[in-house]
């Protein structure tokens, strides 16, 4: 598959975002190149865990996008915390089947991934990190796509 595939597809997505805007609570921060985009998301309902907060997401696209998923992590900044969730490690790594080889589909896109993350937060009531967060954050050297997630609790 040629690298053009990813470039053209991302160009289309960018064009669509610029023409018709993103859904409420999702904003494109930067897309200066077709390798890394930054987006901000907010949870718009009254879930007390996420009220009045904005979270920064970093998307990295390989040349095989959208046949393979992008790498998506939360990024910590002074005004952008890492959301509390049993599937989000405190270093921003997200454990979501949609973003893994098993759950990904090439009809997903940046917008749909952001919406899935919004709803993953909206639906959560646990003010917790994944089990073993401290050890994982200290020891992990792997890129998110190379991590074999073990789903401790599939109910969330």
């Amino acid at each position, binding site marked *: 598959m040629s690298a053009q595939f990813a470039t053209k*597809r991302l160009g289309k997505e960018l064009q*669509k975002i610029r023409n018709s805007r993103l859904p409420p609570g999702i904003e494109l921060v930067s897309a200066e190149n077709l390798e890394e985009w930054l987006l901000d998301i907010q949870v718009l309902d009254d879930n007390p865990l996420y009220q009045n907060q904005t979270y920064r997401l970093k998307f990295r696209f390989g040349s095989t996008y959208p046949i*393979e998923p992008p790498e998506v992590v939360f990024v910590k900044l002074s005004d952008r915390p890492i959301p509390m969730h049993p599937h989000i490690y405190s270093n921003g790594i997200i454990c979501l089947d949609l973003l893994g080889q098993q759950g990904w589909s*090439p009809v997903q896109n940046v917008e749909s991934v952001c919406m899935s993350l919004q709803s993953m937060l909206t639906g959560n009531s646990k003010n917790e990190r994944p089990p073993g967060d401290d050890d994982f954050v200290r020891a992990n050297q792997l890129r998110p796509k190379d991590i074999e997630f073990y789903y401790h609790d599939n109910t969330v």
Partner: protein
Amino acid sequence: MKVKIKRWNGVATWRWDIPEDDVCGICQVHFDGTCPTCKYPGDDCSLLSGKCGHNFHMHCILEWIKQDSAKGQCPMCRQRFEWTEQPNDMSMDTTHAPPEI
């Protein structure tokens, strides 16, 4: 006044004979356009219609199907992706009965 036509050029438009006027879910390009790797639309970059009712550029869906992680599933509905001989809106029955022995 008499008009004598000395020369004329025929012009035609075309579109794929599918019900939806939409984009390929994989590359997000209109069905009447090409997949990202082709230059000329039409027969050189045709569509593939699944029995599940979803259409894609042939080159796009084949890129997906050859991945192990695709598990042979349609990217839209995750049913087994089996293509039909005819586009989805054709009313004729495209499933052929097995030959009788």
